[in-house]
């Protein structure tokens, strides 16, 4: 398979002099087209920083990122990003917020009429299309933000802890939704998370990042069949992966 995303000696240092914070790197990662890669690491290790640099929204201190051999030198408009803090605006309804993504991208709203309904339905928000974000619970807002981030059907998706604010049950549900979505369209997904189980369940590969300054500790291929439903999650092999990762973070003293 071709190496779709290539990250070479990527490093980010914030501030200068005494305020200098070495946030991330240097790191080398390559991701194949259609892969589901999780980036797993403790808080503050630079996961969001990595995402923003991949999206072209933050300039690396050194190193290079390329998508399909084209290096990133400004905001990438052809991908889908779900930021860690939700990007819903309070002056638009849930539906209006989803349309905002389309409007800002100059896409034709009428082409997406059914898609908006479908995606809202997939996260069980179809009855809340006309509600304003402050009227929704934190978890519902996050689901709405997910719809907003995905509506333009990007084939590369960067998700920064998209399930962070969800309750355990909804989390389980959205996980399988994300998995289905990925199995159907096979987008390339980079998925940032704190949850070891989540990473093992969803990904074809997990990249473990050390505490700040984050560097790649190791990469683990998850060799389990899809769809990874409850049956797979109960298997010994699933738990072997989980324990292996737990051990790594245990050594770092983060768990």
């Amino acid at each position, binding site marked *: 398979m071709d190496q779709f995303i290539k990250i070479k000696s990527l490093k980010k240092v914030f501030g200068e002099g005494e305020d200098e914070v070495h946030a991330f790197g240097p790191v080398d990662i390559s991701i194949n087209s259609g892969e589901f890669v999780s980036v797993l690491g403790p808080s503050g290790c630079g996961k969001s920083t990595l995402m923003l640099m991949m*999206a072209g929204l933050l300039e690396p201190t050194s190193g290079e990122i390329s998508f399909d051999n084209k290096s990133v030198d400004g905001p990438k*408009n052809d991908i889908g*990003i779900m930021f860690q803090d939700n*990007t819903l605006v309070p002056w638009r309804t849930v539906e209006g917020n989803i349309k905002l993504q389309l409007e*800002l991208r100059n896409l034709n709203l009428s082409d997406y009429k059914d898609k908006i309904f479908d995606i809202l339905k997939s996260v069980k928000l179809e009855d809340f299309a006309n509600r304003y974000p*402050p009227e929704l619970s934190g978890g519902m807002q996050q689901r709405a933000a997910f719809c907003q981030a995905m509506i333009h059907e990007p084939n590369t998706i960067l998700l920064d802890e998209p399930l962070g604010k969800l309750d355990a049950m909804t989390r389980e549900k959205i996980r399988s939704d994300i998995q289905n979505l990925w199995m159907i369209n096979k987008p390339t997904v980079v998925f940032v998370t704190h949850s070891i189980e989540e990473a093992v369940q969803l990904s074809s590969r997990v990249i473990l990042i050390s505490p700040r300054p984050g560097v790649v500790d190791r990469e683990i291929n998850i060799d389990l069949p899809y769809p990874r439903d409850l049956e797979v999650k109960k298997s010994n092999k699933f738990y072997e992966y989980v324990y292996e990762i737990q051990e790594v973070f245990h050594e770092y003293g983060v768990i």
Partner: protein
Amino acid sequence: MYMRFKRYSTNMASSKNKLTGFLKWIASGWMLILFFVLFFLFWEYSIPLFDVPRYILPAPTEIVQKGSADIDKLIYYTGVTGLETIIGYAIAIILGLGFGIAISFSSILRRTLYPFFVSIEMTPKIAFAPLFISWFGFGLLPKVIIVVLVCFFPIVLNAILAFNSLSNELTLFHRSTGANPLKTFFKIRLPAAMPQCFVGFKYAAINATVGATIAEFIGSDQGLGFYISIVTGNMRPDLAFAGIFFLTLLGLSLFGFVTLMEKILIPWHISMKRINK
């Protein structure tokens, strides 16, 4: 069909909320009304009680009585002062928003005009009033200029604050879509800035009538400020109070209008505040 029914039922719910909201408002309003009634009763009856001469402080009933005899003049002068206030306020909004946006988007202006405005903000603008009167005479123009001056600064400074405080994630979001600056402005920056802009508009609305009145005190031949200074000179505090009453009415109307505009233009902001309570 299902959708329609849904919508209908949410409408029902919201009108019910409005009703209970109104009842609550009346309930909390009663205290205020009662306070006003007691205040005016105290005023009315303490005058004979303490033997206050009427050329010092007249009773409310006398103010109403003497004021109604002069009602034509009072209404006409309210119009004069109102016109000065509204023209000045409108100009201040246009200039304040214009400069506010320009300063927010230009780093050169932010390093020059912005500190200049901040330092002028410290001087009491009303001190310029006699100068403007001496430069531009007794007419409408100097009053409008003074109203603009006292309204402009709160509007421009709040607008700068408003347009500079777009949240980090919304900035990243619009950049990720590649939307052009114009689209970003109208779909993200402007609506996001409105609540803070209205803080400035409201503050300026309070300043506006003050500016017009003082300008009229200093030099004019009509308007409520002129009226109040003349009748006070003639030892007629009853008429002065009548003038003050109309000035209050004018100030309240302007403030009420701005509050109404806020409700109409950014209804989401008010409902957001209600939910967060």
